[in-house]
């Protein structure tokens, strides 16, 4: 398959225009580039990543997968309620450990804990009838229950599962935010029973093993409506409301790993890396030009095309499901690949010099340089790709990012250093 240099040249020119357009700062005219932007990793954009182990002690083995999916669904629902952009919720099974990995860009670690960490188990407790069976250990009581309800406090059969929906409202008298509960039909019946038998007594509303409010029941409530007004701020009321809406987690989660990064540090590091990358390109352009003269200038042009192409791939990937996330280590991998991108050119140019010394013509040397350097370029790049592949298989987060960017770099650089440089040289030395 030998295409004429002219067709190739035009393809390269078109490619150049395309990648320049993609990488132009998107202001104004070119509207299609607007939606393109780099997908930044948590270490740059700031945000929180959390890994949990799902506690499957009480789940039969055939139900574990299902329970894990349940966990993911609940977490996804909660995140959506809070309107986090581009969250990632993944599940993983490794060595019998069932895990959930959550990444929340732009969310700090405390907010993240509120979104996911809050288990929001709602329950209602009543003072037990005298002589009723006692719960074995005091630690099984919610915090504050004994003080309010006495030593015979008892959990009722009404819980967060009986909720139909919740919303945030405001107390008509005080104007303070409160969480309004609406029970399902079944829940409303249970609630009616409870309020009937606890008339003039205190009922404790318990959230996650802590009494948050203990109102006195003045009259039986038959409609299935209730209100929690336990000293909320607007934010805490809406957090409680959404967590109750999203439902309880089917199994408890144990944190394995948590990582929160502040955005300012990430942006600072990003700017530094970009500066270093830019400087790297300039140094290489000078180096190649000094060493190989005209050939070096052509290689530099190919290098710049290479850089823009890789950046374009990063940008374009962000609109596909396979978005490449740029992390600091990924950017380091990319910058490293800039240094390696001209390797093939050096191998070729040295070979051309050698063929010239052997007394061949320019044309002949040029063609021989490319064809004879090919085996070493192929073998060395394949060995780099092998390590990228292994890194991708065994690495986690940042390591995967590095491997992917390096692999893309290796592949594109083979194209730019060989096809682009050769075409340009063939056209120039026609």
């Amino acid at each position, binding site marked *: 398959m030998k295409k004429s240099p002219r067709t190739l040249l035009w393809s390269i020119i078109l490619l150049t225009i395309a990648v320049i357009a993609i990488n132009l700062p998107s202001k104004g005219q070119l509207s299609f580039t607007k939606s393109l932007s780099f997908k930044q990793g948590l270490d740059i954009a700031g945000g929180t990543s959390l890994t949990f182990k799902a506690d499957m002690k009480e789940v039969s083995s055939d139900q574990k997968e299902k329970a894990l999916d349940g966990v993911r669904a609940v977490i996804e629902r909660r995140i959506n309620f809070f309107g986090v952009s581009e969250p990632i919720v993944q599940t993983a099974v490794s060595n019998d450990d069932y895990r959930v990995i959550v990444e929340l860009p732009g969310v700090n670690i405390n907010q993240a804990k509120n979104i996911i960490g809050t288990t929001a188990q709602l329950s209602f407790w009543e003072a037990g009838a005298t002589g009723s069976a006692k719960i074995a250990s005091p630690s099984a009581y919610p915090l504050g229950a004994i003080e309010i309800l006495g030593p015979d406090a008892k959990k009722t059969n009404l819980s967060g599962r009986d909720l139909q929906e919740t919303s945030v409202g405001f107390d008509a008298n005080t104007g303070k935010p409160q969480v309004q509960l609406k029970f399902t039909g079944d829940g409303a019946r249970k609630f009616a029973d409870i309020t009937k038998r606890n008339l003039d007594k205190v009922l404790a509303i318990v959230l996650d093993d802590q009494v948050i409010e203990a109102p006195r029941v003045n009259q039986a409530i038959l409609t299935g409506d209730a209100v929690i007004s336990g000293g909320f701020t607007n934010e805490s009321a809406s957090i409680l409301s959404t967590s109750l809406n999203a439902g309880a987690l089917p199994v408890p989660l144990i944190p394995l790993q948590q990582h929160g990064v502040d955005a300012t540090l990430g942006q600072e590091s990003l700017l530094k890396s970009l500066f270093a990358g830019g400087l790297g390109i300039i140094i290489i352009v000078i180096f190649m030009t000094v060493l190989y003269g005209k050939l070096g200038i052509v290689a530099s042009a190919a290098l710049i095309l290479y850089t823009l192409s890789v950046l374009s791939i990063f940008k374009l990937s962000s609109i596909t499901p396979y978005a490449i996330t740029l992390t600091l280590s990924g950017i380091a991998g990319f910058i490293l690949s800039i240094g390696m991108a001209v390797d093939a050119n050096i191998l070729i140019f040295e070979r051309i010099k050698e063929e010239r010394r052997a007394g061949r013509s320019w044309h002949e040397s040029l063609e021989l340089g490319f064809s004879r350097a090919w085996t070493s370029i192929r073998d060395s790049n394949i060995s*780099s790709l092998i390590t990228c592949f292994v890194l991708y298989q065994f690495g986690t987060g940042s390591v995967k990012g590095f491997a992917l960017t390096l692999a893309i770099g290796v592949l594109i650089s083979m194209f730019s250093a060989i096809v682009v440089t050769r075409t340009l040289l063939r056209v120039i030395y026609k």
Partner: protein
Amino acid sequence: MNIIERKNWYFGLSLLIIIPGIIAIFLWGLNLSIDFTGGSRLTLSFNNAVGNNQVQAVDEILKTEKIKVASIERSNKLIFIRTSPMDQNQNSKFINILSKEFKDVKEHEFETIGPVIGQETTWNALKAVGIASILIILYITWSFRQVPKPTSSFRFGVCAIIALIHDVLVVLGVFAILGHFFGVEVDSLFVTAILTIIGFSVHDTIVVFDRIRENLRKTGSSNFAKTVNESIIQTIGRSLNTSLTVVLVLVALLLFGGESIRWFVVALLIGIISGTYSSIFNASPLLVLWHELRSK
């Protein structure tokens, strides 16, 4: 220039660097980060350069909170803290107490890794290095399968791997020493660096091997040592140049690329310089040594 004739000198120079490193690894081990051991890592920032009183305050608060401190380092406006695993509540409590004393403190980064994840990362790292080496040996053996007698493609593969192990040992040794004297940590990015070095080391070695393969076909192998030496001399320029471009870029990253990837870049730099050395002065001379031992 006859590199092959002096090969024992070059092997000696390598050993001179590797042996202290190996001793350091056995004496002190590597300074493993929480990525492998599990624990917490915090980065705090202040408005002005950090002094001893901030460091002391941090240390005291953590002690009263019964959190084991592994290290506290400062760098200009930042403090880096490593502790036993802290949960979210302990972390916010710590920051609360500290901000009472220093109003300008900000938490930039908080990371906790459980011991389970740590063990997994360690195991995966070892597996990755092992599998990458095996795949590369297989690839080289296959790619050099047509190499003329008296040598064999398998020998090329093994020598490339020895050069690769050389480079990995150099980097590990240097980091064991750096870890002991300067508290430099080995984290999961370091593993990435090692694997990249493996790729690059072989990359460099192949350039020389490829020329040996070509010259053997052309001139035959009546004088194996001479052919190998010529091949090294013919390719030494491009070996140095290809490494130099990478080194230049890495130096730019080292000087201007920011704190978080500094030691990652240092590891890469050492590895790539070592890789260039080993591809010229170890890998190919080893081929000759093997040949000589066999033909005796």
